[in-house]
Protein backbone atom coordinates (compact mmCIF):
# COMPACT_ATOMS: atom_id res chain seq x y z
CA UNK A 1 0.00 0.00 0.00
CA UNK A 2 2.52 2.55 -1.01
CA UNK A 3 1.33 5.99 -1.85
CA UNK A 4 3.08 8.16 -4.42
CA UNK A 5 5.60 10.00 -4.89
CA UNK A 6 5.70 9.42 -8.54
CA UNK A 7 7.40 10.98 -11.49
CA UNK A 8 5.10 13.03 -13.64
CA UNK A 9 6.12 12.59 -17.28
CA UNK A 10 9.76 12.66 -16.23
CA UNK A 11 9.38 16.15 -14.86
CA UNK A 12 9.52 15.88 -11.15
CA UNK A 13 7.66 15.09 -8.15
CA UNK A 14 4.02 14.68 -7.15
CA UNK A 15 3.03 14.06 -3.56
CA UNK A 16 -0.57 14.51 -2.40
CA UNK A 17 -1.96 14.08 1.13
CA UNK A 18 -3.33 10.59 0.48
CA UNK A 19 -3.35 7.59 2.80
CA UNK A 20 -4.67 4.06 2.69
CA UNK A 21 -6.16 1.95 5.49
CA UNK A 22 -3.49 -0.06 7.24
CA UNK A 23 -2.72 -1.56 10.62
CA UNK A 24 -0.45 0.28 12.97
CA UNK A 25 -1.23 3.79 11.74
CA UNK A 26 0.16 5.15 14.99
CA UNK A 27 2.42 2.21 15.81
CA UNK A 28 2.19 -0.93 17.88
CA UNK A 29 -0.47 0.21 20.32
CA UNK A 30 -0.05 -2.96 22.39
CA UNK A 31 2.74 -1.09 24.13
CA UNK A 32 0.16 1.32 25.58
CA UNK A 33 -1.27 -1.33 27.90
CA UNK A 34 -0.95 -1.43 31.65
CA UNK A 35 -3.50 -4.24 31.98
CA UNK A 36 -4.13 -7.05 29.54
CA UNK A 37 -7.33 -9.02 28.93
CA UNK A 38 -7.08 -12.77 29.39
CA UNK A 39 -9.83 -15.00 28.01
CA UNK A 40 -10.91 -18.01 30.09
CA UNK A 41 -11.70 -20.42 27.26
CA UNK A 42 -13.69 -22.67 29.59
CA UNK A 43 -16.17 -19.91 30.39
CA UNK A 44 -16.19 -18.42 26.87
CA UNK A 45 -19.35 -19.44 25.00
CA UNK A 46 -18.50 -17.72 21.73
CA UNK A 47 -21.35 -15.20 22.08
CA UNK A 48 -19.06 -12.57 20.49
CA UNK A 49 -20.39 -9.68 22.60
CA UNK A 50 -16.78 -8.77 23.40
CA UNK A 51 -15.95 -8.83 19.69
CA UNK A 52 -18.88 -6.49 19.06
CA UNK A 53 -17.83 -3.94 21.65
CA UNK A 54 -14.05 -3.94 21.22
CA UNK A 55 -13.14 -0.42 20.08
CA UNK A 56 -9.93 -1.59 18.43
CA UNK A 57 -11.06 -4.65 16.50
CA UNK A 58 -8.33 -6.56 18.33
CA UNK A 59 -10.62 -9.35 19.47
CA UNK A 60 -10.65 -11.93 16.73
CA UNK A 61 -13.07 -14.79 16.26
CA UNK A 62 -11.04 -17.97 16.23
CA UNK A 63 -12.28 -20.74 13.92
CA UNK A 64 -13.58 -22.87 16.78
CA UNK A 65 -16.30 -20.61 18.18
CA UNK A 66 -14.11 -18.78 20.72
CA UNK A 67 -12.19 -15.51 20.72
CA UNK A 68 -8.55 -14.51 20.92
CA UNK A 69 -6.84 -11.19 21.59
CA UNK A 70 -4.38 -9.52 19.24
CA UNK A 71 -1.87 -8.43 21.86
CA UNK A 72 0.21 -6.49 19.31
CA UNK A 73 -2.47 -3.84 19.19
CA UNK A 74 -4.82 -4.37 22.15
CA UNK A 75 -4.78 -1.17 24.22
CA UNK A 76 -6.01 -2.86 27.39
CA UNK A 77 -9.11 -0.67 27.84
CA UNK A 78 -11.06 -3.44 29.53
CA UNK A 79 -14.39 -2.92 27.76
CA UNK A 80 -14.42 -6.61 26.80
CA UNK A 81 -14.04 -7.73 30.40
CA UNK A 82 -16.78 -5.35 31.46
CA UNK A 83 -19.34 -6.43 28.85
CA UNK A 84 -18.74 -10.19 28.78
CA UNK A 85 -22.04 -11.71 30.01
CA UNK A 86 -20.19 -14.75 31.39
CA UNK A 87 -17.31 -12.90 33.04
CA UNK A 88 -14.96 -14.97 30.91
CA UNK A 89 -12.41 -12.18 30.51
CA UNK A 90 -10.14 -10.99 33.31
CA UNK A 91 -7.95 -7.90 33.25
CA UNK A 92 -4.49 -8.83 34.47
CA UNK A 93 -1.62 -6.49 35.17
CA UNK A 94 0.84 -6.22 32.35
CA UNK A 95 4.42 -7.11 33.06
Amino acid sequence: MTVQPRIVRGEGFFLAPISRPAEGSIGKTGTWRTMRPVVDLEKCTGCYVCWLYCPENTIVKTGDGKVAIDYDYCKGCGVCAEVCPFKAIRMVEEG
Partner: protein
Amino acid sequence: MVVRSLTGNYAVAYAVKLARVQVVSAYPITPQTTIVEKLSEMIEKGELKAKMVRVESEHSALATVFGAASGGARAFTATSSHGLLYMHEVVWWAAGSRIPLVMAVVARSIGPPWNIHVDHQDIFDQRDTGWIIGVAQENQEVLDMTLQAFRISEDPRVYLPVMVGLDGFILSHTRAPVDVPDQDLVDEWLPPRRQPYVISPETNVVMGNIAPDEVHYLMRYSMHEAMERAKRVIEEVDRSYAEVFGRSYGGLIECYKCDDADILVVITGSWSGDAKHAADRLRSIGINVGVARVRFIRPWPRERLVEIARDKKLVIVFDRAVSMGSLGPLFMEVSSTLYPYGTSLAGVIAGLAGVDVSYEDFERAIKTLVSKLEEQGRLYIPQFWLFPEGFESEEKRLEVARKWL
Protein backbone atom coordinates in the same frame (compact mmCIF):
# COMPACT_ATOMS: atom_id res chain seq x y z
CA MET B 1 -19.33 29.87 -33.36
CA VAL B 2 -21.90 32.42 -32.37
CA VAL B 3 -21.28 36.01 -31.39
CA ARG B 4 -23.44 37.01 -28.47
CA SER B 5 -23.77 40.22 -26.52
CA LEU B 6 -22.64 39.02 -23.13
CA THR B 7 -21.75 40.51 -19.80
CA GLY B 8 -18.56 39.19 -18.22
CA ASN B 9 -20.67 37.14 -15.85
CA TYR B 10 -22.62 35.56 -18.66
CA ALA B 11 -19.34 34.87 -20.46
CA VAL B 12 -18.30 32.85 -17.41
CA ALA B 13 -21.61 31.00 -17.44
CA TYR B 14 -21.27 30.10 -21.13
CA ALA B 15 -17.73 28.85 -20.58
CA VAL B 16 -18.91 26.70 -17.67
CA LYS B 17 -21.64 25.27 -19.89
CA LEU B 18 -19.19 24.55 -22.70
CA ALA B 19 -16.86 22.82 -20.25
CA ARG B 20 -19.73 20.47 -19.34
CA VAL B 21 -19.39 21.15 -15.63
CA GLN B 22 -21.34 18.59 -13.60
CA VAL B 23 -21.74 20.19 -10.18
CA VAL B 24 -22.24 23.89 -9.47
CA SER B 25 -22.66 25.40 -6.05
CA ALA B 26 -22.49 29.03 -5.07
CA TYR B 27 -23.83 31.62 -2.70
CA PRO B 28 -24.97 34.94 -4.11
CA ILE B 29 -22.82 38.03 -3.60
CA THR B 30 -22.81 41.17 -5.69
CA PRO B 31 -21.35 41.36 -8.37
CA GLN B 32 -21.16 37.59 -8.92
CA THR B 33 -24.88 36.87 -8.72
CA THR B 34 -25.72 36.79 -12.40
CA ILE B 35 -23.16 34.01 -13.04
CA VAL B 36 -25.08 31.67 -10.81
CA GLU B 37 -28.46 32.92 -11.93
CA LYS B 38 -27.54 32.19 -15.55
CA LEU B 39 -26.17 28.77 -14.68
CA SER B 40 -29.36 27.96 -12.73
CA GLU B 41 -31.39 28.91 -15.78
CA MET B 42 -29.21 26.81 -18.07
CA ILE B 43 -29.50 23.82 -15.77
CA GLU B 44 -33.23 24.07 -15.31
CA LYS B 45 -33.80 24.51 -19.03
CA GLY B 46 -31.75 21.38 -19.66
CA GLU B 47 -28.99 23.22 -21.52
CA LEU B 48 -26.44 22.14 -18.95
CA LYS B 49 -26.60 18.68 -17.36
CA ALA B 50 -25.45 19.51 -13.88
CA LYS B 51 -26.53 19.49 -10.29
CA MET B 52 -26.93 22.86 -8.63
CA VAL B 53 -26.51 22.83 -4.89
CA ARG B 54 -27.97 26.02 -3.45
CA VAL B 55 -25.90 26.26 -0.33
CA GLU B 56 -26.26 28.55 2.63
CA SER B 57 -22.82 30.22 2.58
CA GLU B 58 -19.66 30.66 0.49
CA HIS B 59 -17.67 28.47 2.86
CA SER B 60 -20.18 25.73 2.13
CA ALA B 61 -20.15 26.57 -1.58
CA LEU B 62 -16.47 25.90 -2.00
CA ALA B 63 -16.62 22.89 0.34
CA THR B 64 -19.45 21.50 -1.76
CA VAL B 65 -17.71 21.86 -5.11
CA PHE B 66 -14.50 20.59 -3.57
CA GLY B 67 -16.35 17.54 -2.27
CA ALA B 68 -17.85 17.01 -5.70
CA ALA B 69 -14.48 17.39 -7.39
CA SER B 70 -12.85 14.85 -5.08
CA GLY B 71 -15.63 12.44 -5.95
CA GLY B 72 -14.70 12.73 -9.63
CA ALA B 73 -17.00 15.39 -11.05
CA ARG B 74 -16.05 18.58 -12.84
CA ALA B 75 -17.23 21.30 -10.49
CA PHE B 76 -17.40 25.08 -10.41
CA THR B 77 -18.17 27.95 -8.09
CA ALA B 78 -17.95 31.74 -8.18
CA THR B 79 -17.66 34.44 -5.58
CA SER B 80 -16.36 37.91 -4.69
CA SER B 81 -14.83 39.96 -1.93
CA HIS B 82 -16.35 38.95 1.41
CA GLY B 83 -17.51 35.63 0.06
CA LEU B 84 -13.98 34.82 -0.98
CA LEU B 85 -12.68 35.83 2.42
CA TYR B 86 -15.35 33.68 4.09
CA MET B 87 -14.25 30.60 2.14
CA HIS B 88 -10.55 31.34 2.57
CA GLU B 89 -9.94 28.31 4.77
CA VAL B 90 -11.43 26.03 2.13
CA VAL B 91 -9.39 27.78 -0.59
CA TRP B 92 -6.25 26.50 1.12
CA TRP B 93 -7.72 23.08 1.75
CA ALA B 94 -8.68 22.63 -1.88
CA ALA B 95 -5.26 23.61 -3.18
CA GLY B 96 -3.37 21.37 -0.78
CA SER B 97 -5.51 18.39 -1.72
CA ARG B 98 -4.35 18.73 -5.39
CA ILE B 99 -7.88 18.22 -6.68
CA PRO B 100 -8.48 20.21 -9.91
CA LEU B 101 -11.17 22.86 -9.56
CA VAL B 102 -12.14 26.16 -11.18
CA MET B 103 -13.59 29.24 -9.49
CA ALA B 104 -14.51 32.62 -10.90
CA VAL B 105 -13.78 35.62 -8.70
CA VAL B 106 -15.54 38.83 -9.55
CA ALA B 107 -13.18 41.38 -8.06
CA ARG B 108 -14.80 43.67 -5.56
CA SER B 109 -13.43 45.83 -2.78
CA ILE B 110 -13.57 44.79 0.84
CA GLY B 111 -15.34 46.69 3.61
CA PRO B 112 -15.99 48.30 5.90
CA PRO B 113 -17.54 50.44 4.61
CA TRP B 114 -19.69 48.30 2.33
CA ASN B 115 -18.62 48.81 -1.25
CA ILE B 116 -19.59 46.76 -4.27
CA HIS B 117 -17.24 48.40 -6.75
CA VAL B 118 -14.04 46.97 -8.11
CA ASP B 119 -10.58 46.75 -6.75
CA HIS B 120 -8.19 43.83 -6.62
CA GLN B 121 -7.82 43.41 -2.86
CA ASP B 122 -9.85 40.21 -2.76
CA ILE B 123 -7.89 38.51 -5.53
CA PHE B 124 -4.45 39.52 -4.32
CA ASP B 125 -5.39 38.33 -0.88
CA GLN B 126 -5.33 34.75 -2.25
CA ARG B 127 -1.78 34.79 -3.60
CA ASP B 128 -0.26 32.41 -1.06
CA THR B 129 -2.93 29.73 -1.23
CA GLY B 130 -1.58 27.54 -4.04
CA TRP B 131 -4.27 28.44 -6.58
CA ILE B 132 -3.33 29.47 -10.07
CA ILE B 133 -4.75 32.99 -10.41
CA GLY B 134 -5.63 34.54 -13.76
CA VAL B 135 -7.10 38.02 -14.27
CA ALA B 136 -8.91 38.96 -17.49
CA GLN B 137 -9.13 42.32 -19.21
CA GLU B 138 -12.33 41.98 -21.17
CA ASN B 139 -15.33 39.73 -21.60
CA GLN B 140 -14.00 37.68 -24.50
CA GLU B 141 -10.94 36.88 -22.45
CA VAL B 142 -13.14 36.02 -19.49
CA LEU B 143 -14.82 33.28 -21.51
CA ASP B 144 -11.58 32.04 -23.03
CA MET B 145 -9.71 32.09 -19.73
CA THR B 146 -12.47 30.21 -17.92
CA LEU B 147 -12.46 27.47 -20.57
CA GLN B 148 -8.68 27.29 -20.45
CA ALA B 149 -8.79 27.12 -16.66
CA PHE B 150 -10.30 23.63 -16.77
CA ARG B 151 -7.63 22.36 -19.08
CA ILE B 152 -4.82 23.94 -17.06
CA SER B 153 -6.16 22.70 -13.74
CA GLU B 154 -6.72 19.14 -14.92
CA ASP B 155 -3.31 18.81 -16.58
CA PRO B 156 -1.35 16.07 -14.76
CA ARG B 157 1.67 18.33 -14.68
CA VAL B 158 -0.35 20.83 -12.67
CA TYR B 159 -3.25 19.37 -10.63
CA LEU B 160 -3.84 22.69 -8.87
CA PRO B 161 -7.10 24.67 -8.73
CA VAL B 162 -7.50 27.81 -10.88
CA MET B 163 -9.13 31.14 -10.07
CA VAL B 164 -10.35 33.33 -12.92
CA GLY B 165 -10.62 37.00 -11.95
CA LEU B 166 -12.84 39.55 -13.66
CA ASP B 167 -13.46 43.11 -12.53
CA GLY B 168 -16.76 43.75 -10.77
CA PHE B 169 -19.30 45.75 -12.76
CA ILE B 170 -16.78 46.93 -15.33
CA LEU B 171 -16.69 43.47 -16.85
CA SER B 172 -19.22 41.48 -14.88
CA HIS B 173 -22.20 43.67 -15.70
CA THR B 174 -21.19 45.31 -18.95
CA ARG B 175 -22.13 43.75 -22.27
CA ALA B 176 -19.69 43.25 -25.08
CA PRO B 177 -19.70 41.10 -28.20
CA VAL B 178 -18.29 37.71 -27.25
CA ASP B 179 -17.52 34.88 -29.61
CA VAL B 180 -18.97 31.74 -28.02
CA PRO B 181 -17.14 28.67 -29.39
CA ASP B 182 -18.98 25.63 -30.72
CA GLN B 183 -19.62 22.82 -28.29
CA ASP B 184 -18.07 20.20 -30.60
CA LEU B 185 -14.84 22.17 -30.91
CA VAL B 186 -14.67 22.54 -27.15
CA ASP B 187 -15.38 18.84 -26.66
CA GLU B 188 -12.42 18.04 -28.88
CA TRP B 189 -10.13 20.58 -27.31
CA LEU B 190 -10.96 20.05 -23.62
CA PRO B 191 -10.09 16.46 -22.65
CA PRO B 192 -12.31 14.49 -20.25
CA ARG B 193 -11.62 15.26 -16.63
CA ARG B 194 -8.49 13.89 -15.05
CA GLN B 195 -7.53 14.07 -11.39
CA PRO B 196 -4.77 12.44 -9.32
CA TYR B 197 -7.19 10.36 -7.22
CA VAL B 198 -10.87 9.90 -6.54
CA ILE B 199 -12.48 9.34 -3.16
CA SER B 200 -14.64 6.26 -3.59
CA PRO B 201 -15.17 2.78 -2.14
CA GLU B 202 -13.27 1.39 -5.12
CA THR B 203 -10.09 3.34 -4.41
CA ASN B 204 -10.52 3.27 -0.61
CA VAL B 205 -8.23 6.27 -0.20
CA VAL B 206 -8.20 8.74 2.63
CA MET B 207 -7.42 12.39 1.99
CA GLY B 208 -5.83 14.65 4.50
CA ASN B 209 -5.02 12.81 7.71
CA ILE B 210 -1.99 13.85 9.71
CA ALA B 211 1.35 13.44 7.95
CA PRO B 212 4.85 13.70 9.39
CA ASP B 213 6.19 17.26 9.17
CA GLU B 214 8.90 16.34 6.68
CA VAL B 215 6.35 14.73 4.40
CA HIS B 216 4.07 17.77 4.61
CA TYR B 217 7.06 19.91 3.68
CA LEU B 218 7.61 17.70 0.64
CA MET B 219 3.95 18.02 -0.29
CA ARG B 220 4.36 21.80 -0.26
CA TYR B 221 7.46 21.43 -2.40
CA SER B 222 5.48 19.29 -4.80
CA MET B 223 2.93 22.11 -5.14
CA HIS B 224 5.76 24.52 -5.79
CA GLU B 225 7.11 22.34 -8.58
CA ALA B 226 3.63 22.07 -10.06
CA MET B 227 3.38 25.87 -10.06
CA GLU B 228 6.68 26.08 -11.95
CA ARG B 229 5.47 23.53 -14.50
CA ALA B 230 2.16 25.41 -14.72
CA LYS B 231 3.94 28.37 -16.34
CA ARG B 232 4.74 26.19 -19.32
CA VAL B 233 1.33 24.59 -19.35
CA ILE B 234 -0.35 28.00 -19.43
CA GLU B 235 1.72 29.03 -22.46
CA GLU B 236 0.98 25.72 -24.19
CA VAL B 237 -2.73 26.03 -23.54
CA ASP B 238 -2.74 29.58 -24.86
CA ARG B 239 -1.09 28.44 -28.10
CA SER B 240 -3.30 25.40 -28.50
CA TYR B 241 -6.40 27.52 -27.91
CA ALA B 242 -5.22 29.93 -30.58
CA GLU B 243 -4.83 27.08 -33.06
CA VAL B 244 -8.36 25.83 -32.54
CA PHE B 245 -10.32 28.97 -31.64
CA GLY B 246 -8.20 31.69 -33.24
CA ARG B 247 -7.48 33.80 -30.17
CA SER B 248 -4.26 34.17 -28.21
CA TYR B 249 -3.44 36.54 -25.41
CA GLY B 250 0.29 35.97 -25.15
CA GLY B 251 0.27 33.40 -22.35
CA LEU B 252 1.34 34.55 -18.92
CA ILE B 253 1.86 38.19 -19.92
CA GLU B 254 0.24 40.10 -22.75
CA CYS B 255 2.87 42.30 -24.31
CA TYR B 256 1.27 45.46 -25.77
CA LYS B 257 3.81 47.45 -27.78
CA CYS B 258 6.38 46.56 -25.17
CA ASP B 259 9.23 45.37 -27.41
CA ASP B 260 10.37 48.81 -28.48
CA ALA B 261 9.11 50.68 -25.43
CA ASP B 262 11.34 52.72 -23.15
CA ILE B 263 8.76 53.04 -20.42
CA LEU B 264 6.94 49.88 -19.43
CA VAL B 265 3.66 49.82 -17.55
CA VAL B 266 2.99 46.60 -15.61
CA ILE B 267 -0.65 46.14 -14.76
CA THR B 268 -3.51 43.64 -14.55
CA GLY B 269 -7.28 43.74 -14.93
CA SER B 270 -9.78 45.65 -17.03
CA TRP B 271 -8.14 49.03 -16.52
CA SER B 272 -5.24 47.71 -18.60
CA GLY B 273 -7.33 48.82 -21.55
CA ASP B 274 -7.18 52.42 -20.35
CA ALA B 275 -3.46 52.05 -19.76
CA LYS B 276 -3.03 50.82 -23.34
CA HIS B 277 -4.98 53.80 -24.65
CA ALA B 278 -2.83 56.15 -22.58
CA ALA B 279 0.25 54.41 -23.96
CA ASP B 280 -0.91 55.09 -27.51
CA ARG B 281 -1.58 58.75 -26.77
CA LEU B 282 1.79 59.18 -25.08
CA ARG B 283 3.54 57.58 -28.03
CA SER B 284 2.02 60.25 -30.24
CA ILE B 285 3.86 62.89 -28.20
CA GLY B 286 7.10 60.96 -28.20
CA ILE B 287 6.99 59.06 -24.92
CA ASN B 288 7.52 55.42 -25.86
CA VAL B 289 5.24 53.54 -23.52
CA GLY B 290 4.41 49.85 -23.65
CA VAL B 291 2.10 47.79 -21.42
CA ALA B 292 2.93 44.38 -19.96
CA ARG B 293 -0.44 43.08 -18.86
CA VAL B 294 0.12 40.33 -16.34
CA ARG B 295 -2.57 37.73 -17.04
CA PHE B 296 -1.52 35.26 -14.38
CA ILE B 297 -0.34 36.57 -11.04
CA ARG B 298 0.15 33.00 -9.87
CA PRO B 299 2.35 31.31 -10.90
CA TRP B 300 4.26 34.55 -10.95
CA PRO B 301 5.74 34.86 -14.48
CA ARG B 302 9.18 35.80 -13.29
CA GLU B 303 11.18 34.64 -16.31
CA ARG B 304 8.79 36.18 -18.81
CA LEU B 305 8.76 39.50 -16.96
CA VAL B 306 12.55 39.58 -16.88
CA GLU B 307 12.60 38.98 -20.63
CA ILE B 308 10.22 41.86 -21.27
CA ALA B 309 11.30 44.37 -18.66
CA ARG B 310 14.96 44.05 -17.84
CA ASP B 311 16.29 46.67 -20.26
CA LYS B 312 13.53 49.23 -19.94
CA LYS B 313 14.38 52.76 -18.80
CA LEU B 314 11.53 52.74 -16.31
CA VAL B 315 8.99 50.20 -15.15
CA ILE B 316 5.79 51.64 -13.67
CA VAL B 317 3.55 49.24 -11.81
CA PHE B 318 -0.09 50.13 -11.29
CA ASP B 319 -1.65 48.36 -8.31
CA ARG B 320 -5.38 48.24 -7.74
CA ALA B 321 -4.71 46.87 -4.27
CA VAL B 322 -2.34 47.61 -1.44
CA SER B 323 -0.78 45.40 1.17
CA MET B 324 -1.67 47.74 3.96
CA GLY B 325 1.42 48.70 5.93
CA SER B 326 3.63 47.93 2.97
CA LEU B 327 3.52 48.38 -0.80
CA GLY B 328 1.29 47.42 -3.69
CA PRO B 329 1.35 43.63 -4.11
CA LEU B 330 2.04 43.69 -7.84
CA PHE B 331 4.88 46.14 -7.23
CA MET B 332 6.39 43.87 -4.61
CA GLU B 333 6.40 40.97 -7.08
CA VAL B 334 7.81 43.09 -9.91
CA SER B 335 10.48 44.76 -7.85
CA SER B 336 11.77 41.52 -6.38
CA THR B 337 11.86 40.04 -9.89
CA LEU B 338 13.74 42.99 -11.46
CA TYR B 339 16.06 43.63 -8.53
CA PRO B 340 19.14 41.99 -10.12
CA TYR B 341 18.74 44.15 -13.25
CA GLY B 342 18.72 47.50 -11.48
CA THR B 343 15.78 48.77 -13.54
CA SER B 344 14.22 52.05 -12.43
CA LEU B 345 10.93 51.28 -10.72
CA ALA B 346 7.83 53.10 -9.59
CA GLY B 347 4.80 51.67 -7.84
CA VAL B 348 1.50 53.50 -8.20
CA ILE B 349 -1.49 52.75 -5.99
CA ALA B 350 -4.72 53.73 -7.71
CA GLY B 351 -8.32 52.76 -8.27
CA LEU B 352 -8.92 51.33 -4.80
CA ALA B 353 -12.51 51.15 -3.66
CA GLY B 354 -13.73 51.38 -7.23
CA VAL B 355 -12.42 54.90 -7.82
CA ASP B 356 -12.39 55.37 -11.55
CA VAL B 357 -9.01 55.73 -13.22
CA SER B 358 -9.31 57.19 -16.70
CA TYR B 359 -6.76 57.06 -19.48
CA GLU B 360 -6.04 60.71 -18.66
CA ASP B 361 -5.17 59.73 -15.09
CA PHE B 362 -2.79 57.12 -16.49
CA GLU B 363 -1.26 59.70 -18.80
CA ARG B 364 -0.78 62.18 -15.99
CA ALA B 365 0.82 59.64 -13.71
CA ILE B 366 3.16 58.32 -16.39
CA LYS B 367 4.19 61.82 -17.48
CA THR B 368 4.92 62.85 -13.88
CA LEU B 369 7.08 59.79 -13.31
CA VAL B 370 8.87 60.16 -16.63
CA SER B 371 9.83 63.76 -15.83
CA LYS B 372 11.07 62.67 -12.41
CA LEU B 373 13.18 60.06 -14.15
CA GLU B 374 14.61 62.70 -16.49
CA GLU B 375 15.54 64.91 -13.53
CA GLN B 376 17.13 62.20 -11.46
CA GLY B 377 18.53 59.77 -14.01
CA ARG B 378 17.44 56.79 -11.98
CA LEU B 379 14.23 56.27 -10.08
CA TYR B 380 12.98 54.16 -7.25
CA ILE B 381 9.56 55.23 -6.01
CA PRO B 382 8.10 52.22 -4.23
CA GLN B 383 4.77 53.81 -3.44
CA PHE B 384 2.93 56.69 -5.09
CA TRP B 385 -0.75 57.08 -4.24
CA LEU B 386 -2.56 58.44 -7.29
CA PHE B 387 -5.42 60.73 -6.50
CA PRO B 388 -8.03 62.09 -8.88
CA GLU B 389 -7.62 65.72 -9.94
CA GLY B 390 -8.54 67.98 -7.07
CA PHE B 391 -7.30 65.59 -4.41
CA GLU B 392 -3.56 65.90 -4.89
CA SER B 393 -2.66 68.06 -1.91
CA GLU B 394 -3.11 67.39 1.78
CA GLU B 395 -5.27 70.52 2.21
CA LYS B 396 -7.52 69.53 -0.65
CA ARG B 397 -7.98 66.08 0.83
CA LEU B 398 -8.80 67.49 4.27
CA GLU B 399 -11.29 69.85 2.67
CA VAL B 400 -13.04 66.98 0.91
CA ALA B 401 -13.11 64.89 4.07
CA ARG B 402 -14.49 67.77 6.14
CA LYS B 403 -17.19 68.51 3.60
CA TRP B 404 -18.20 64.87 3.55
CA LEU B 405 -18.37 64.68 7.32
